[in-house]
């Protein structure tokens, strides 16, 4: 985002809104967002095709098929938001545009807010792309509305959590490569418990591990609603860590942006 593009915001327009507008133009008109969304749609097409036509997978109940598509959407959509946010500051720094950006009459805090919101647009785009697939797989079993509502609530919480994490990494990373690599590593580590054998997930330790991790807790909650047809309130305790993760990390990312959007990367003073 070049500084000149911020040069003349209307006095009535809040700075963060100007940043959001410019970041969205960079992301979507620049083409990066569309290409990522296109790649995501190809992935969803493959999954939907396999679920619908493969004999081995076809025994899956429709609710399970919808749950699978929604969980993939949440995982990939929040990954995209994380990647965009992890590039937000370290990318500007590396491209040499951060200095100009800091000279604009927009506070650093507003820069952080604007960049965070723009990164979240990738999640909402992923959710929008998933709608026809969810509708197709869930038609006839009255699960589409529920799936979309669960996707909006849980997916948005996880996307806010991960995008905030990405922004924090981007503030302090010495290079864009470190920021992106760290973001991906943390994301993989957060998803690792889903690969644990069932026996390891039993007992209080396994349960605690799944509950304190916002990603596993969120995915578990979605599965309970869609696959097991539980009511929204039945497993509400599983939403504690996604809510806390989103609120705490968003607050931390915005607060840290106000202080640490600086020309040098790393922890240099």
């Amino acid at each position, binding site marked *: 985002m070049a500084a000149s593009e911020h040069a003349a915001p209307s006095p009535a327009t809040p700075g963060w809104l100007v940043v959001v507008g410019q970041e969205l133009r960079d992301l979507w008109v620049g083409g990066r967002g569309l290409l990522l969304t*296109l790649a995501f*749609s190809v992935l969803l097409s493959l999954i939907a095709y396999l679920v619908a036509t493969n004999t081995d997978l*076809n*025994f*899956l109940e*429709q609710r399970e098929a919808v749950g699978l598509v929604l969980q993939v959407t949440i995982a990939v959509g929040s990954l995209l938001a994380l990647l965009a946010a992890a590039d937000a500051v370290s990318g500007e720094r590396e491209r040499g545009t951060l200095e100009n950006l800091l000279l604009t009459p927009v506070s650093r805090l507003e820069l952080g807010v604007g960049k965070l919101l723009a990164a979240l647009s990738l999640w909402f785009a992923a959710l929008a792309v998933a709608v026809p*697939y969810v509708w*197709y797989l869930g038609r006839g079993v009255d699960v589409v509305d529920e799936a979309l509502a669960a996707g909006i609530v849980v997916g948005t919480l996880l996307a806010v959590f991960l995008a905030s994490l990405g922004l924090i990494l981007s503030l302090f990373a010495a290079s864009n490569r470190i920021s992106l690599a760290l973001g991906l590593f943390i994301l993989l580590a957060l998803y690792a418990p889903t690969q644990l054998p069932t026996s390891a997930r039993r007992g209080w330790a396994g349960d605690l591990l799944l509950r304190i991790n916002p990603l596993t807790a969120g995915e578990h909650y979605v599965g309970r609603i869609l696959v097991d047809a539980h009511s929204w309130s039945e497993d509400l305790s599983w939403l504690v860590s996604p809510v806390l993760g989103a609120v705490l990390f968003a607050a931390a990312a915005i607060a840290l942006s106000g202080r640490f959007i600086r020309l040098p990367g790393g922890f240099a003073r």
Partner: protein
Amino acid sequence: MRRAAVSAVVAVALLGAGSAQAAVPDVSVEVDRTHVSAELGQDFSFRSTIRNRGSSPAAGLVAHLNVLSLRPGLYVDPEDWSEDRTRYLAPIPAGGSTAVTWTVTAVNSGALGVYVAVLPSSGAGRPITGPTLRADIAERKTIDAGGIVPLALGVPALLGALAVGVRLRRR
């Protein structure tokens, strides 16, 4: 469902390995049904009762669930059917019984046999098996595949066209 009595009864003393081990308990296994019909992907449950027919308490017993195809040509992995197939039983008093409920997911279609075996944790003697629960699992096609190709191709094509349009407009 009718209650089926068990065929297998153990004559403990005969099964002993001749060691100093305590006698293998005289227990029987019963199940609350011998037939179940389900659709692929459905869960069903049944209850087995392990009865101590001996005159002393039966301790250290292990109950195990097994699943197999009654027809050739179908590979069955019992792990897929139930996550919790082995139960370590609490001591059963003389003349008493203990019930174990098994929840099973129908993972393959066809005619399958499900049975429970009980054996002493000492490893001595033969397992005691209950009657076979015959499971007839019907094929189930839940998702109509019609229309998936236009959707699977259409959404990426639409997004691709949008990306190309945006790129051309920028030039």
